[in-house]
């Protein structure tokens, strides 16, 4: 799980071009949107593709988005729970 979360942080920074922060600056439980990292709806769409590309996981139900992307930990948990066999 720790390794997955560390990977995710790097991938998020690269996918969203967050030049001003380092992976260490993102807390595992820090909110990614609005008051946390300040991400918005466009970033959510970028993250959906990130999960698809890197982990082969497709989020079909748009309403799942906010829950899955609430923090790095929630993303990692979702990936672990939905890992394709």
């Amino acid at each position: 799980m720790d390794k997955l979360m560390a990977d995710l942080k790097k991938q998020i920074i690269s996918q969203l071009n967050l030049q001003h922060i380092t992976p260490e600056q993102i807390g595992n439980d820090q909110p990614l949107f609005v008051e946390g990292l300040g991400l918005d709806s466009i970033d959510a769409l970028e993250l959906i593709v990130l999960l698809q590309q890197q982990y082969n996981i497709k989020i079909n139900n748009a309403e799942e988005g906010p829950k899955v992307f609430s923090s790095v930990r929630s993303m990692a948990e979702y990936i672990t729970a939905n890992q394709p066999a």
Partner: protein
Amino acid sequence: MKLYIQATGNISPQNTLGQPTLPANLSEYNTNRLYSIEPDYSKLIDVKLIRRMSRIIKMGVAAALQCLQEAGVENPDAIITGTAYGCLEDTGVFLQKMVQNKEEMLTPTAFIQSTHNTIGAQIALLLKCHGYNNTFVHRGFSFESALLDAIMLLEEKTVSNVLIGGVDEITDFSFGITSRFGLFKKNINSNLNLFDTPSKGTIAGEGAAFFLLNNHPSQKDYALLDGVSTFYKPIDLEETEHHIQSFLSEQSISMNDIDLVLCGRNGDSIGDKVYDDLNERLFEQSLITNYKHLCGDYPTSTAFALWLAAGIIKSGSVPEALMKAPKNDIKRILIYNHYQKIHHSLMLVSTC
């Protein structure tokens, strides 16, 4: 009504950002593609907002913010941009992924940033500027159309100032494609010698030049913008001369009142014939100089020309880097450019 050029901001292949006029040391290139000299954007744009911006957006936004900073204006009443090609890099990124990924796994960022009005929109977003916001995308008339819109707005007195800019970028894709049309010279020793040996083609350029126009004077104005005019596909030299003369008579002046003609000569022997012919006739008695060896040729290069002219008017003299025997007492400049012999434009600037 008098319209004042209150401040400028110019990112170009020369070291122009934050400079009132052309620096003494010109940047020399030995290729047919000139690149803008880009500043450390983090000094001008909030780093959190830079992340989605492609090069042209950063250039445009930074030049605009520099211009506002110089004017001491936080929020303009209107923002108008001209760009012939728009955000080519984002367009290319999205197109390439779409083709290569066969329409799968695409993300929205490049698409939403590829929209032609992104630069004007990002400036508005940064400044929380709710005023009039428009973008013109008409090839060699893009910047001139934006100017025309700005002049009308200021005359309507619904605004007192307008932030206006001309922006275009070259990307590897666009340079590759336009090169195949044979637009550029094959061998270049130096852009600074562009006019020495006439041959086919020109050199590619890019840049972002912004201006704050105001219908009231300030202490720091560069020049008056007296007028702008465009004419499309003139049939012959007579028609071109006729347009120039009627533009001048609308201003109640003649060529004798022009202290300097700033021409859009680009080194291409076919296109430059228009300037050669005018130099023998209408411009025969005039002091003439050129600007495209400095910034390269691109559809909105007239924004660079306006920056150069405004600086010359403000200082009253032609910089040595532009003309070996410096001329002083320059009070009125006519800018004449044609882009690929299709889009002809005139701008007139004078001392305040």
